[in-house]
């Protein structure tokens, strides 16, 4: 079928697409149904392989639930455990986490759980502090009991517990009685006994807020130095929020200028060395690169999408190839860093590049906030020519350098097929093709 119009005609006979969560439904059946036509030798082999897999996973400090769960069940993690929690949800449970589920409703009684939810009907996670309602997304819920409750036992513990929710992708609504907040990617919330509030600083703030909770419990014994550190953390969070609002303001201003016929403003993501130098001082990074192409996007980009980006239909292959190459480059760089961060290549594979990037940075930030903040500053310094790459860069620095080098690589590849002007415009114009823009600071 070399003639494209003929292919186009045949493609008018549209097939049925797999519905959301199909793969997980298959896995549930694989788990639930006994092997068919299995010889005793094969059965023994399977048992040995399964036992080995669990043993290897445990030795690596990461357990993989040996059987797939059905539409209802319960799991309590003693080690870090990845498990399907129903048909459309995969959870990574930290030690001490306990979750039960029935269909699309889960109850998280305790602990720290990272969730990935396939798109579909809403999923609700009930916690002692409120409900978390989500569509397809990645998010984390951590429930903290105070130490007095732990000593006293479970009864009444929820009254003084605190739940934290951090969102990596999609949107999440945290609600209780007459209170509710909606969280976007990068945002986090704290649900205490009195109220639900957003945390400035997103997922990283979850960890800082935890430190603040502990600090509050022990404030009688705190010295002045600890207080200063705590105020510094709060100040960081405020600065981050300020940077985010400034970016939003600049974006709104740019749109207003365009609407009123003003000269096209340079994109905030089209960064010169002096811009990087400024970002370095603010411990911030920015990058804009192709979105991750997924199988449900079909033959992307369509003629209509190209037209809206100011390109002729014949440029589809150039654009698609550049996006595909970029996706592969990013994933090749991020995946090993992610596998190292979460302790499992399989988990890295299952959570994908976007969430992986957030996890790499968040986990590093949790381990050493000052070093992570320094890495953010280093990126701008290196990009502006004020510094060079250190000999043993941290995972955060490697990840951020990788992401911030990608726009130039994509632009260069696009320029071969589209010419330099169109390549640059496509990468930085507001109404472009599928792009993702990120602006982070620490």
């Amino acid at each position: 079928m070399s003639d494209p119009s003929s292919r186009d005609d045949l493609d008018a006979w549209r097939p049925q697409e797999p519905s959301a969560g199909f793969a997980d439904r298959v896995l549930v059946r694989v788990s639930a149904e006994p092997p068919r036509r299995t010889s005793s030798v094969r059965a023994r082999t399977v048992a040995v392989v399964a036992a080995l897999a669990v043993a290897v996973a445990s030795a690596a400090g990461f357990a993989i639930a040996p059987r797939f769960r059905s539409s209802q069940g319960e799991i309590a993690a003693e080690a870090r455990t990845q498990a399907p929690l129903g048909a459309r949800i995969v959870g990574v449970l930290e030690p001490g986490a306990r979750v039960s589920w029935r269909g699309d409703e889960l109850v998280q009684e305790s602990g720290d759980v990272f969730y990935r939810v396939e798109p579909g009907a809403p999923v609700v996670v009930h916690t002692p502090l409120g409900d978390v309602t989500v569509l397809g997304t990645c998010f984390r819920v951590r429930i903290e009991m105070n130490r007095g409750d732990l000593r006293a036992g479970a009864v009444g513990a929820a009254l003084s517990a605190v739940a934290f929710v951090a969102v990596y992708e999609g949107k999440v609504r945290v609600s209780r009685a007459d209170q509710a907040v909606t969280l976007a990617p990068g945002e986090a919330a704290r649900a205490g006994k009195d109220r639900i509030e957003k945390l400035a600083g997103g997922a990283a703030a979850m960890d800082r807020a935890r430190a603040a909770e502990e600090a509050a419990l022990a404030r009688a014994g705190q010295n002045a130095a600890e207080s200063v550190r705590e105020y510094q953390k709060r100040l960081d969070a405020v600065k981050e929020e300020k940077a985010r609002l400034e970016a939003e303001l600049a974006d709104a201003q740019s749109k207003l200028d365009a609407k009123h016929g003003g000269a096209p403003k340079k994109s905030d993501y089209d960064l010169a060395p002096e811009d990087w130098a400024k970002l370095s001082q603010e411990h911030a990074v920015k990058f804009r690169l192709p979105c991750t192409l997924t199988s449900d996007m079909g033959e992307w980009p369509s003629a209509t999408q190209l037209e809206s980006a100011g390109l002729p239909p014949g440029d589809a292959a150039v654009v698609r190839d550049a996006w595909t190459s970029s996706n592969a480059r990013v994933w090749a760089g991020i995946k090993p860093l992610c596998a190292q961060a979460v302790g499992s290549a399989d988990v890295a594979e299952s959570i994908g590049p976007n969430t992986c990037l957030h996890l790499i940075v968040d986990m590093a930030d949790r381990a050493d906030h000052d070093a992570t903040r320094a890495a953010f500053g280093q990126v701008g310094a290196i990009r502006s020519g004020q510094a060079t790459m250190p000999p043993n860069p941290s995972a955060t620095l490697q990840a951020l350098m990788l992401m911030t080098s990608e726009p130039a690589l994509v632009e260069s590849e696009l320029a071969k097929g589209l010419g330099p002007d169109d390549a640059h415009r496509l990468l930085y114009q507001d109404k472009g093709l599928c792009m993702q823009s990120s602006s982070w600071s620490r």
Partner: protein
Amino acid sequence: LPGSLVERVMMRAPGMDAHAQAPGSRELDRATLARCKLRDPLAFRAFVVRYERPVFALLSRMMGPGVDVEDLAQETFLRAFEALSRFDLDGPARASTWLLTIATRLALDARKRRRHETRELDAGASVADAATPETERHRLEIGRAIARAADELPDDQRAAFVLAEFHHLGVHEIARVLDVPENTAKTRLFRAREKMRAALASWRNE
């Protein structure tokens, strides 16, 4: 309307698509397939995600859209899971062709068990890209015409046509999928294309 398609279906010689690769039909990598053979659940999930679209495409074009398709697709992957340990990574069959063989045989069995209820095929329901209404209507009509014409084919010819046109299998592979001699597969594909041509020409002249 479908003149160009009629002409091309009429002119296409059997076997000319031999070993053609469907656009975007990248095979799962060898390491993941090896893990599938060991019944690694995460690897098998990747296997399902990689191949769910071609399996749904084949089954829906063999059976018509509906609940049966999801059931048969699940059954296809369950059987694949059972049989993967016997799949030869160094053998002549690609994993996709091997899986489509399972799906095709399940579809043929299902069609034998019951004559497929005729449905109004919503062939263009999700035409993408905000095409103009006229273009959308045009594609809808073509899609329905092809689906109706394919529905008139005997099951084995329909399978040969779908495998060749939508999954880019060559005659040699179709013969293996249908478990028939190569010449038989060639004849079935030829007859399927002839009948499709005639049916579509007739529709064009209505």
